[in-house]
């Protein structure tokens, strides 16, 4: 786990490039406080800040192949590195370390990009080929680790693990992309490949890129969702499925514990994190440390459930009482860690802070369970809506327009969302593409300046990867379609991105055993009715760990992890929000409609809709991010 950075720029000399990369490494010191390194050759300089997890003594980066041809900077962890190491050794590679970085380097040196599907883990890396003078980079299949880049003049490329790192280089401008603002207001996040800043790109999950000697850039998709139907691994009955699932879960838990430093776990008290911790205990982890956030506000804290799980599994359990006052105090520091706006992630920030302070360098999280086992409302609602669409299309267009207009004239958020579905969705993919939108289309457009609105209207309401995602899912059933959309949009764009940024802010490596290509490969083609029981969400997961997770947790009603933001925003966070929504702050956001934004804030203060906070917070974070002081270049 590290932060990586690099500049490929034929028009800059080595000292100019090294100065830029040094600034970039400094800007991501939090990602890798244990070591740092720099390498220059020809037109390239690459560097990294290392958080030493595997073979701490020998895994220095940038790492070179023995013949000096290949040099790698790597962010992430390869869990099957020992298995690959044995294979590569048999092919004649002489290993000098026991580090996953060298295994990745060897795999690429021997097999090129064809090595990517064999990697089990989370990764974003860049490799300079001195002989061919090419720079190759790739990002893991589901997007756990980030890779941002920007083209430079004369065929150059700038890359890094955070946008702040790219900006710190001094080689690119901090200019807001108006289209990205519209995308963010739609869905809490800015989907790859776009970022908040013009010209700065987010390499999408499962993609690779290569800069050729003539400066041309090639990007390719190297991973798509598994085949929807694979009779060879499909379970014949539910018992076989549960048995197989248990074996797969134990396998992924074992794989994700590979480390030469202490490993702990986040434990919210829900089914997913309890299953993770229970399986860790079952697979032999001793002196396991677990971490929970708790709240004073009634109805939000899951402390009892987490304590029950910790007691059952015999963990050393740590709790952190998060209050609105604490958050208000920490907010400037938290905002400084943001590289893109997000409406989420505060919980990960504090849980990571607690875990690092509690003595672990690696923590496992239950993220991904909802997407795999269908416990979001989308798995229930979207198929129902999809059955309505053929009937809806039979209505005369004039009547359709009148109905949509009628729905949009209502203040009810559900009516507005339904209006968006009816106006813009033609099939399940388009329903799924729209369903994670936080602001209804009419509201979103009203918040934008005329120029930004024109950009938003040009791109339309759908997710920018709609065609690619839908094209990957030919032959998939409804459960797979919704699961894939949840995995590739909300999970990748929001949950995993935030997890990376906020865990790395505390130099903590966060691992997500449910987001594992091997587990996904087995689970994906299994019959939907095995994975998902609408009457009992996560029944399959509960059954697979029935012997280790207490019944009180298995039978608990699903409760989304939420912070008491609504109350805090009216009390402790009020001064921050008043300032954020002031005319002076909004003056720096010319792409927003000041009056409309301020109206949203006022309506929140006087309204009673308990869910409205997320819309207000989403906008506030964007405004605050733009208004935060720009760090001085050092």
């Amino acid at each position, binding site marked *: 786990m590290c932060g990586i950075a690099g500049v490929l720029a034929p028009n800059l000399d080595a000292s100019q490039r090294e100065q830029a990369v040094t600034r970039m490494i400094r800007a991501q010191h939090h990602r890798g406080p244990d070591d740092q390194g720099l390498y220059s050759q020809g037109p390239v300089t690459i560097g990294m800040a290392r958080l030493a997890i595997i073979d701490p003594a020998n895994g220095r980066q940038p790492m070179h192949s023995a013949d000096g041809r290949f040099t790698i900077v790597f962010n992430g962890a390869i869990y099957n590195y020992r298995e690959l190491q044995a294979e590569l050794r048999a092919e004649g590679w002489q290993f000098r370390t026991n580090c996953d970085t060298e295994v990745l380097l060897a795999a690429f040196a021997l097999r090129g990009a064809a090595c990517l599907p064999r990697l089990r883990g989370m990764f974003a890396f860049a490799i300079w080929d001195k002989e061919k003078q090419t720079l190759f980079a790739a990002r893991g299949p589901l997007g756990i680790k980030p890779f941002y880049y920007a083209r430079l003049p004369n065929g150059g490329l700038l890359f890094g693990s955070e946008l702040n790192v790219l900006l710190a280089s001094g080689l690119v401008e901090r200019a807001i992309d108006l289209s990205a603002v519209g995308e963010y207001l739609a869905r809490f996040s800015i989907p790859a490949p776009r970022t908040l800043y013009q010209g700065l*790109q987010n390499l999408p999950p499962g993609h690779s890129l290569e800069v050729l000697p003539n400066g041309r850039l090639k990007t390719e998709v190297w991973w798509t969702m598994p085949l929807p139907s694979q009779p060879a691994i499909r379970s014949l009955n539910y018992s076989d499925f549960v048995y197989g699932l248990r074996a797969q879960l134990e396998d992924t838990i074992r794989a994700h514990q590979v480390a030469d430093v202490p490993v702990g776990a986040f434990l919210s008290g829900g089914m997913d994190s309890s299953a993770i911790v229970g399986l860790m205990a079952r697979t032999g982890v001793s002196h396991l440390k677990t971490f929970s956030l708790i709240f004073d506000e009634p109805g939000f804290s899951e402390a009892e459930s987490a304590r029950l799980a910790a007691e059952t599994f015999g963990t050393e359990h740590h709790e952190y009482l998060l209050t609105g006052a604490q958050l208000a105090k920490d907010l400037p520091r938290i905002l400084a860690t943001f590289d893109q706006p997000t409406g989420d992630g505060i919980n990960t920030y504090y849980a990571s802070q607690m875990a690092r302070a509690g003595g672990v360098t690696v923590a496992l999280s239950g993220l991904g369970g909802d997407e795999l086992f269908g416990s979001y409302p989308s798995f229930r609602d979207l198929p129902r809506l999809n059955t309505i669409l053929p009937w809806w299309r039979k209505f005369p267009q004039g009547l359709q327009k009148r109905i949509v207009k009628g729905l949009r004239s209502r203040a009810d958020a559900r009516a507005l969302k339904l209006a968006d579905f009816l106006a813009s969705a033609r099939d399940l993919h388009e329903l799924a593409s729209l369903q994670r939108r936080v602001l209804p289309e009419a509201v979103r457009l009203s918040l934008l300046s005329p120029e930004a609105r024109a950009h938003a209207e*040009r791109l339309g309401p759908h997710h920018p990867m709609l065609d690619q995602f839908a094209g990957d899912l030919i032959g998939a059933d409804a459960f797979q379609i919704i699961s894939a959309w949840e995995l590739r949009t909300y999970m990748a764009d929001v949950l995993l991105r935030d997890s990376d940024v906020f865990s790395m802010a505390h130099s903590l490596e966060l691992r997500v055993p449910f987001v594992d290509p091997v587990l996904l490969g087995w689970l994906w083609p299994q019959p939907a009715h095995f994975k998902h029981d609408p009457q009992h969400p996560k029944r399959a997961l509960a059954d697979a760990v029935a012997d280790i997770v207490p019944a009180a947790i298995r039978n608990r009603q699903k409760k989304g992890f939420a912070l008491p933001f609504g109350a805090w925003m009216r009390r402790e966070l009020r001064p921050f929000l008043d300032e954020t929504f002031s005319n002076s702050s909004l003056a720096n956001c010319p792409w927003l409609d000041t009056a409309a934004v301020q109206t949203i804030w006022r309506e929140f203060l006087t309204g009673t809709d308990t869910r409205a906070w997320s819309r207000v917070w989403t906008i506030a974070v964007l405004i605050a991010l733009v208004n935060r002081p720009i760090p001085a270049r050092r």
Partner: protein
Amino acid sequence: MKTILLSPELFLGEGGIARIMRLYLKSLCELAAPGEAVVAVVLNDFPGDDSKLPRYSTPALHGVLGCSRSKWRFARATLNQAQRDARIVCGHLHQLPIAWLAKRLNPGLNYYLVAHGIEVWRPYSALEVLAMRGATAIWCISEYTRRQMLRFCPQLDPRRLVVVPNTLDPFFTPTELPPTTPTPAAPKLLVVSRLATTDTYKGIDTVIEAMPHFLRLHPQGQLRIVGGGNDVPRLTALVATLQLQHAVTFTGIIDDAALRAEYANCDIFALPSRKEGFGLVYLEAMTYGKPCLGARAGGVPEVINDHVGVLADYGNIPEIAVALDDLVRHPRDATTIRAHADSFDFTHFTQRLALALR
């Protein structure tokens, strides 16, 4: 065996479907074995042979039946022509139910659908689904169109959906113009498109918006926009707002000879469109050895690769500007580009069609 080609238009207009269906007519005529006949039934054309017909037919053609926009006449002519061992090649999904009905009346008949692009990227009516499921094969102009059809109609057997890429009209070939060399100091960009408010997805406004970025890098750059339509006032206003009058020229609608000259004189062809089923217009530019900028959307990535052009995300203005700059700084090899266009020429098309008919 008789082959019946159904088409909305052949010679009435110069729309994309009419142009490609003419080539289907020519190809089917060339593939007809001795004694086999080809008949075209055309919904919108008027009775009587067009002067261009000889170019697109052989003696195997036994007639073009123009139906003067009468759907009733079109249906009746099709059913009259349909025989037990005939095959029907249907040029538009809307006409497929007629073919389905013909098969109901003549069970030995086979029918095929040519799926072009945007007209099949949508949910289908029950009748359309029924008709598509009865088709012997569906010829999709791109893998993208094939995937869209499977997305909106999962009941279709994927094996029956075959990709038959569009082809260039052999009569639209570069004329003997003096060879041009790239002009990196004053790069000339070309857009060719219908400029209609219904076609804003073509992304012409995004090329215009990218021009200020592009001109910062190439101050002598020029953009020429060929085509006409009711979106011209909006685009002209955009040019004025961005103060680009010195760098952007609207030529209006021009004839074939002038169009050839535009292709020959440009350095880069740019059309970052969101909804191209295939992108024939890029191939036209490529026959002149010109590199193309397209959007990473629709069927375009199947036509534009790294050796012949560059792709950018639709609507991403900075990326479009960088992509244009890339094409100026790293000119693609004109011979490679022409060779790529040649792989979509009429000869290859006829070979692919022959395979698809087996």
